[in-house]
């Protein structure tokens, strides 16, 4: 599903080694944490998966495709198969919850009853009753749920989350994590970049620990300890 082969990423302007010789494989259906302090390389790793940046050395294979050989015009097709959730949900403020989802569907060229599909996705995150609410009318936790619904509305096989609980209180964070776990149980591969120690320790899953751009631990039994 995701394969990093000796990946190094250097940002030439700052001469920073964001990642150094990173090598791991994530299988289909896995739930994995990518943990590390700020600047450890978590965001760069996610950016490489989305091919927002390209590796300086090594190769990244996503859903069976070598991203270095992927033509630019095929990039949107890859991204349609990857759902993405951010710390700051990135919902469009001038659109209701349903409209945000419909917008994502429309942007990917989906046709048919998009409102119905959006409603089904909102139902899966238990927010069908807030379908007409605008982001500003939702709590932070609800906003993040809508963002997860938007990421999942196209039924991607892979869901990436970049600090999805960063702005949330512990209870809400736990709800979000349970939601991600439910999505994983239904068959979607989930990768969560986080530094929320309690959550990682509470719901133990495979954990890749990054420090200074290097993988210092890849542990099936999980746990946050750096």
């Amino acid at each position, binding site marked *: 599903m995701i394969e990093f082969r000796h990946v190094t990423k250097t940002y030439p302007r700052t001469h920073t080694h964001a990642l150094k010789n990173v090598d791991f494989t994530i299988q289909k259906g896995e739930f994995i944490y990518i943990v590390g302090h700020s600047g450890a390389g978590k965001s760069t790793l996610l950016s490489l998966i989305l091919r927002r940046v390209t590796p300086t050395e090594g190769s990244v294979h996503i859903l069976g495709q070598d991203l270095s050989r992927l033509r630019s*015009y095929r990039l949107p097709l890859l*991204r349609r198969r990857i759902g*993405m959730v951010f710390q700051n949900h*990135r919902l469009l403020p001038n659109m209701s919850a349903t409209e945000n989802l419909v917008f*994502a569907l429309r942007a*990917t*060229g989906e046709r048919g009853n998009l409102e119905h599909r959006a409603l089904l996705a909102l139902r899966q995150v238990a927010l069908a009753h807030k379908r007409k609410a605008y982001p500003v009318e939702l709590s932070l936790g609800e906003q993040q749920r809508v963002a997860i619904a938007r990421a999942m509305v196209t039924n991607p096989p892979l869901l990436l989350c970049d600090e999805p609980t960063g702005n949330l209180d512990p209870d809400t964070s736990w709800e979000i994590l349970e939601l991600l776990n439910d999505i994983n149980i239904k068959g979607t591969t989930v990768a969560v970049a986080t530094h929320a120690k309690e959550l990682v320790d509470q719901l133990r899953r495979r954990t890749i620990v990054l420090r200074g751009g290097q993988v210092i631990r890849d542990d099936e039994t999980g746990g946050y300890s750096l």
Partner: protein
Amino acid sequence: MYALRQALRAIRKNWIASISTLTTMTLSLTILAGFSLLSLNVNLNLGELQNELELAAYLSRSADPQAVLETVSGWGEVVSAELVSPDDALENLITELPYIERPSAQVNNPLPYSLYLRLSDPSQTARVGEALRELPGVDEVEDGGEAVETFLAINEALRLIGSVLIVVLLSSALFAIVNSIRAAITARRDEIEVMRLVGATRGFIRSPFLIEGVFLGLLSALLTLLLVVPGYSFIALRLSQTLRFLPLERDPLALAQLSLLLVALALLVGLVGSAISVSQYLQEDG
């Protein structure tokens, strides 16, 4: 349909930038249209002048008029050559100036054989005039070359100024579109980011902005035509009343062609301007 809705929404939302673009484009296109009409009319006048212009050569008494006529008729630039005898010349003169009829009867006809030429290209007038002067048997030549040269110089200057104006005005219209679309892109930066993340194609992201550019171009072309068509009709009417001798371009086909060209140019500027803007943004954004 979605792209069109988004484009119209962007125009409404960024109405200050849209109006500024429309103003700049309309002004540029109006100046261009005015200049094109001026050029069209100068060309028309030049054509008329070409039709009316005659070279006149007066032959010496010793000349063989038929031999001169034959020589001149063989020149490539000469469309027609007419030989007028002294008697016919006098008759023509009396028709124009009846009061000389009586005095002319008292003296021998002083007029020589004269030769009237029409040329295919008025710019050759001076050269043909010189060649005529060199011919044996030709005493004097009237070529009206100064008038032609003035007209040709005006035409050349207009062409030069026109080329510079086209570049300057189209560039300003293009930059206006580029800036307007950039403002629209900035306003929709978050939407574009979401579109890219969910896997929207470049075409899907670009299309609302391209439509916006084309729409602004079309609108400014229509505004220009609204200004230029009645404006030109009014000016042409006033000129035809005061300067009756001046031929003015009234051919509906020529004016329709000019209008179509203006619309096509505006659409092209709109399309190219928005394409530049959106490509630049998508490239910068990775």
